Structures are given as structure tokens and as C-alpha cells.
């Protein structure tokens, strides 16, 4: 791993597939292994011929070789193959997520994702989040109601299911104390799916009761994945799940209209962003893989 400032230290990360391409320059100054071997090859002549003692009469094969006017100095790069190939592998992604931007309700969830990588940088996948039973409402709603007489409509989630595309534009590697090397990458993820949510009755809870309903949701996020082995990584991700939420009406209808469900919700749905942080593991299957070219 060359972090040097020498010739080989610049632009020395090539993450193309296969070991034969210059995946990453581990050379010291960029000329590791160059020079001497090439020189020997260029000036050494025919060893078998030397042993046979017929130096003055080269054979036909030797005559066909182009004449070498100088010493050859080939640069031989010692390169590392991509640590964990993703192409044609399946990624299993268990994680825990919680809300970053909602001070009233923590929409925590356990999540399971599945990605199929059709290139080393592009994947298509799905993820499923289960919220019900894991959410918690903070004391803030109570404090607000008590101090300002203002009811803040909140929502509860049951689950979310999303189809996602993942792209990896950034690769990198970290060294720790010049001893360990960790491969990592950063990715962008986005997609479309559904969320099953409902308003939580806070304005007129004695009468109102809401069922879960399906909403169409979009999501967009960024994440970082650090490889622990060739099939296991830890990841952190921030993803915004966006959808139109039907909120509870702040007004209570009078008389029998109070019982009409049509009066329980606001006239227009509200655009809602649920910015979540995911922390979890990614497991690549199969555990082993073969490089296209040998080391």
C-alpha cells in the first residue's frame, strides 16, 4: 500500500476487476521489482546454448529474435487484487435503524436487506423494515401539550418495503498504526417502495382510532461499508424515507360529525421525511469467489 509521495504514489489506485490490471499500487515509489530482472533478461542470452558451448552458431530461433540495442528495464508493479469482489454475489444486510430528525417519535426498526451485485459497483436489491413494537414516543409531545396547549400530530409505522439501487462511487483503504489494513467503500442508495403507517390519535383519542394504511415512499441515502473479511463488513448509512403522510385533524367536529371518520384526518396529506440511520452488518454470499485472473 503506497501512501508515498514518489512517482508511484500518485493516482495509484485502480480498482478494476482482476489481478492483471493494476488494481492498486503497492510499490515503493512505483518501481518495485523493476530494473534488474529486466536487465538480466535483456542481456543474458541463451542459457541452454551457453551450456552446449555453441555460442558462435546461434540457432534459427535466436536469429529470428529482434536485436536488442540496449538494456531492457521493464517496470513490474506489485499490485493487490480487489479485496472483496462483489460482482455476481448476493449481499445479506441485517441492520438496526432509528430516526434522526423526529424529536417526537423514534421510529426504530429492525431491517433486513438483500442486494444482488451485477457489477462491482452496481446492485439491485430490496430491504424490509419492521417498526411496530420498536417505536417510542418521547416526552416532548407531552411537554408541548402541557405548556402550550398545542397537540402535535404524530404517526406510527408498521413496516416498510423498498426496491433499491446501489452505486459505489468511492473506494478506499485505511491503515491502522501501519499494521492493519481495512478496505472500505462509500455508496449511494435510492429507490421506491411502500410504508404502512397510521396517525396516532392525540387530539381526540377517545373517539378516533386509525388503521394502518399503505403509502408510496421514496428513499435516498448514503453509506459507508468497512470490510472485516472478504464476506463480512460493518456498515453505517443515513437514508431519508420520504412519503405523503395522512395526519390527524387538529379540529374536532361537533355533534354526530365527531364520529365520522372523514373528519378525523387533515384534508391534505403532509410530505414527511423520515431520516434514519442504519447500523448493521453485510454478509456476502457465497463466502468465496474466484478472481478472473491469477494473482
Amino acid at each position, binding site marked *: *500500500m*503506497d501512501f*508515498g509521495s514518489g512517482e508511484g504514489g500518485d493516482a495509484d489506485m485502480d480498482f478494476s476487476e482482476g489481478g492483471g490490471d493494476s488494481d492498486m499500487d503497492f510499490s515503493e515509489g512505483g518501481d518495485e521489482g523493476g530494473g534488474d530482472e529486466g536487465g538480466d533478461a535483456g542481456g543474458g542470452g541463451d542459457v541452454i546454448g551457453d551450456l552446449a558451448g555453441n555460442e558462435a552458431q546461434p540457432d534459427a530461433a535466436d536469429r529470428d529474435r529482434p536485436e536488442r540495442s540496449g538494456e531492457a528495464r521493464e517496470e513490474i508493479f506489485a499490485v493487490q487484487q480487489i479485496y472483496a469482489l462483489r460482482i455476481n454475489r448476493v449481499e445479506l444486510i441485517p441492520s438496526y435503524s432509528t430516526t434522526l430528525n423526529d424529536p417526537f417519535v423514534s421510529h426504530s426498526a429492525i431491517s433486513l436487506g438483500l442486494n444482488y451485485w451485477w457489477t462491482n459497483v452496481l446492485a439491485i436489491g430490496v430491504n424490509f423494515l419492521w417498526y411496530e413494537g420498536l417505536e417510542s414516543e418521547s*416526552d416532548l409531545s407531552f411537554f408541548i401539550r402541557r405548556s402550550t396547549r398545542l397537540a402535535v400530530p404524530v404517526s406510527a409505522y408498521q413496516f416498510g418495503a423498498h426496491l433499491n439501487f446501489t452505486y459505489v*462511487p468511492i473506494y478506499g483503504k485505511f491503515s491502522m498504526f501501519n499494521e492493519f489494513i481495512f478496505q472500505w467503500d462509500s455508496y449511494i442508495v435510492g429507490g421506491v417502495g411502500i410504508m404502512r403507517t397510521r396517525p396516532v390519535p392525540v387530539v381526540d383519542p377517545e373517539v378516533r382510532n386509525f388503521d394502518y394504511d399503505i403509502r408510496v415512499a421514496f428513499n435516498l441515502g448514503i453509506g459507508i461499508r468497512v470490510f472485516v*473479511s472478504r464476506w463480512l463488513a460493518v456498515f453505517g448509512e443515513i437514508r431519508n424515507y420520504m412519503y405523503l403522510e395522512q395526519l390527524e385533524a387538529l379540529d374536532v367536529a361537533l355533534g354526530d360529525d365527531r364520529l365520522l371518520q372523514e373528519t378525523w384526518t387533515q384534508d391534505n396529506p403532509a410530505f414527511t421525511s423520515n431520516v434514519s440511520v442504519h447500523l448493521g452488518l453485510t454478509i456476502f454470499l457465497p463466502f468465496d469467489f474466484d478472481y478472473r485472473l491469477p494473482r
Partner: protein
Amino acid sequence: MMSQITKSLLVAALAASVAWVAAPTSRASAQEIQITGPLAGAPAVRRLRQHRVGRVQLVVPTVGYTLQDEFSRSLMVGLGAHVHFTDFLGIGVWGAMANFAGAFQIDTDLTTQVITNGQTTDRNRLSMPSNEGFGDQIAQLLGLASVHLIFAPLRGKLALFQGAFADTDFWILAGFAAAFVEERADVTDASVCAGATSSAACLDSQTARNVRFAPAPMIGVGLNLYFNEFLGMSIQWRAFPFDMNPSGTDESGQGADGGPGGGFPDGQINAEDQRFYFHHMINLGLIINLPPEIQVSD
């Protein structure tokens, strides 16, 4: 809110522990090179560009934004400086002022909702003498200053679209912070807001302010990207938990479990109304390393 953050941190720690235990060989990458590669026996990194050791790292300016605020957000503009004894350890100072020394106020949607729809009654007159003036009683962060140790255990490089390359390091900081907060001034006489309507004295109590200094621990993590030997960019997350009464309302009188209820209200606005807050923020900063020349390891 604290339980939410604590829960998240615990889960993160658990996930990291599981990953560590499940890893078949934690040194696979480095050992692979040492044992089977052409550089067998060599250190993991040669000719390391040491961006920190023996240098002063100025972060000028830092521009940040507080997160998860309930009533008022803060745009933080500041500067920092770090001196490093080694390439992975140093000390630093950082300071930032909020909203250009209070030149403006960034209300959350909740504050706007309270101003528009909040209702003052005999039962909450002390907490909110008028809904229109609610924006004047909420707490504001004025500034932050910190002194901290900074530890950068991870050094690396990244490639963006296989076309742009940058040295990087990941760092952790821990230290002490001084937060300067402007809050609603104490109201010790409950009779000020005891009338059927909000008296002038009661309304005055809504806008009266008090500035205090709140010591707090500070922790943070960050990622530095170095574009060349002396310029870079820093992406930071900092947390500085301390007690605060962000709404300027009467909240004390909790039950035995510390939760809301019990003996509420106590009829006073004072330090008893403060709640624990996990303040945190993100920062972006421009790095200038001095001297410009960099040291390169063997």
C-alpha cells in the same frame, strides 16, 4: 431522547462486537501481503505522507449546523487549530459562534406552530404568557468553545470514480466544551402570571433573558480529506450534552421516576426546569496545514 441515542449507541457497539468476533482473521489484509505477497515482511505502508506530525492544522473556517433541535437551530461558524505530537495524536482548540452572534434566529417548524396555534390559559400562563411571544422565550445557543485531545487511528486514501484521489484520515476527539446559552430569565414569583389575563409583568417575563455558561463534555468523530500537502477538508460530528430548558416553560415537578407529572407545576421558571439534552452538530471545515512541507515516513 437520551434513551434513543443511548439505544442507538448500544446497538452500534453490539454490531461492532459481533463483527469483530465473527471475523475469521482480523489481520487478513495485512497478513496476506506479508506472508504471500512480493512485499513479504514489509510494513503495511511505506512512504506514508504524514499530514499531522509536527504541524499545526488550522481549520478555518468551520461551518456547522446543530441537529435534532426542538425549537431553535444554530448555524455555527468558527475556527479550530490542532497541534500534533505524532501522526495520530494531538491536542486542539475550537470555537464557534451561533447565528453570527445572534444576528438571526432559526425557528423550527414546531416553534412556528406554537406561535400560530398555541393557546394561553390560566393553567399554562406562566409557561407561555402569549403564543405570539413564544419565539422570544425559547433558548438560544450563543457559542461554543472546546479544548480536546484528537486521536487519528486510521490513515488511508480514497478514489472517487477511479479518477480523483485523496489522502484521508479518520479521527476521534474527546475533551471539554464551554457552551454559552441564552435562556428565559428565572421567574421566581408565581403571582406574576396569576391573573386571568397576561399582565404586562407577565409578558415582560416572557422576553427577559439570561445568559449562562454551561460546561459540557465534548466528543466527536471526523474524516479529513487532503487535496494536497497543505489544503484539505474536514467533515466532523460533535456532541456536547448538557442540561437546558429550550422552551422556557415550567416543566419541573416531576414524579418520583423523574418523568413528567407528579407535583407539576412548581410555579417557577428556574434551573429545575432544565432537562438533559444530547446536543450534537455536523461541521465542515477547510484545512490549512502549516508548515506546507510534509514529512514522509520510510
